[in-house]
């Protein structure tokens, strides 16, 4: 009989132990914090060991590490259910109490219900959420194409407006560092587009000079991105990576407990 050690260990630690922990926690509150920390230690160590130990039970296609990724996806699904319940509860309360903006809460709930219904219809009829056999979009796809995609693009395009207002308001040469930032930002913005050619467009005699200057500006912008920006980014990435590693050690060893809602003494 093949004993799938990895699968058994995961089920034991991620399913059996939490259930035991919940049961014990009802009797002994001190254990309420211990079990999640133990699970955190176990779950944190598996990917680290998997990085160095290529044994099948750990790193293979059906090993503990890839299975842990699958557990996370399953957990996210259950957590999503909690989130949806919360959305429905909050917005229903708003509607029932006729709070300010209750109409928008109703629109949200109607949208949630209709889109969910279309998705469930696609699953029930096996049409899916893409295109129907005749090439026409399923109702879910229709909602996605006519509502979701344009709305997403609209909100994303707000960035252009906010960027302009932030540039006007915040890019001030208040001190030396701010001035250097300003000059660098201006050079990069000018170098990334054919700005000089655009400005010289109504003046044909200036076209060759504008083109040459634009090439120079483009090269300068690329050098600014490549050298000072590249160096600064590398420094921040390395520093942040070390900070992340230190934080991860604290979480795995159970030293950091703030994310569990526990203080240091708990």
């Amino acid at each position, binding site marked *: 009989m093949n004993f799938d050690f990895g699968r058994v260990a995961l089920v034991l630690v991620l399913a059996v132990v939490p259930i035991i922990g919940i049961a014990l926690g009802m009797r002994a509150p001190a254990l309420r914090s211990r079990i999640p920390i133990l699970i955190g230690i176990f779950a944190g160590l598996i990917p680290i060991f998997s990085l160095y130990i290529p044994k099948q039970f750990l790193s293979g296609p059906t090993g503990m590490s890839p299975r842990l990724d699958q557990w996370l996806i399953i957990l996210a699904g259950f957590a999503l259910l909690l989130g949806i319940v919360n959305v429905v509860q909050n917005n229903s309360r708003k509607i029932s109490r006729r709070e300010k903006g209750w109409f928008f809460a109703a629109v949200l709930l109607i949208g949630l219900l209709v889109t969910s219904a279309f998705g469930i219809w696609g699953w029930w009829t096996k049409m899916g959420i893409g295109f129907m056999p005749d090439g026409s979009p399923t109702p879910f796809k229709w909602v996605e194409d006519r509502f979701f995609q344009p709305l997403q693009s609209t909100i994303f395009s707000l960035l252009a407006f906010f960027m302009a207002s932030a540039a006007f308001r915040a890019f001030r040469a208040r001190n030396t560092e701010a001035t250097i930032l300003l000059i660098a930002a201006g050079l990069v913005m000018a170098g990334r*587009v054919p700005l000089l050619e655009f400005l010289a467009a109504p003046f044909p005699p200036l076209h060759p000079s504008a083109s040459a200057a634009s090439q120079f500006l483009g090269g300068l912008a690329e050098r600014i991105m490549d050298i000072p920006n590249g160096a600064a980014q590398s420094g921040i990435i390395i520093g942040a990576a070390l900070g992340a590693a230190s934080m991860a050690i604290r979480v795995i060893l159970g030293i950091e407990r703030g994310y569990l809602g526990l203080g240091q003494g708990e």
Partner: protein
Amino acid sequence: MKRIFTWLLKLDRRWIFLFVLFSVATPIVFPIGLPVTTTDSTRRAFEYLESLKPGDTIWLSFDYGPSSAPENDPMAEAVMRQCFLKHVKVVVLALYPLGGLGLANTAVAKVTAEFPGLRYGEDYVNLGYKDGAAAVMRRLGEDIAGAFPTDVNGTPLSRIPMMRGVHDIRNVKLVFTAATGVIGEWWITQVHSQIGTPVVIGPTAVSAPKYYAYLNAGQLVGMLSGMKGAAEYERLLRDTYPQMARFYKSTRTFTATKGMDGQTVIHTVMIAFIILGNLAFLVTRETGRPEAAA
């Protein structure tokens, strides 16, 4: 003069928004046709793809959603066109959860229609979407069929001719990821660093500064930064393959080259705003809110 600058400083931001709207919309309605210059990072990506031989396989990952489609769609389409011209096989997949697959399907349908001789399963294949991007990438290093047992149509990989010689990501010559967010970085850290497959990234312009660190470290073969990078790639494609010019001339379809007109105007407007704002600040010396401190 001081009164004008004081008025300027107190200007409602909605006037700025309106000005920006006209600045961006006007070049779309009245195209200018400004030239596009190429940068080293884009040229390196193009030359690497040019060095591939007919029959080589590349991985084209749609790791973006509808929000960044104007930046990422043109680069994905340009890379696909180059591959089909060179008879390089393309494996398409999507790892972005919201809208990635739809964009992949649309782009594949659009570009493959331009090359009537292409055959699905022999020249290109669409593996569809898979959840858990980083976990999928780790799995690709061992066994592609384990991550994608079937293609988007449900056909097992073993029955797709071009996938028979592609057991894992080591058998692929390049990964091109058109990405938004962190998925592009995972291709570098999970695939290139651990397996060695070369990666070219096409990030959105806002993420591009971070990837210069990886480019300088040699962890990226090349990079297409935002819409400018896409426009540069389109220019390189047209220069190398003049027959491609017809796809970039149409007034109906959006291309990055056309988008650069709008981007040029808005950059000019923003630089003007910055200069005006600073002139107003210097003239009035108003301090306003607390400083932004790091």
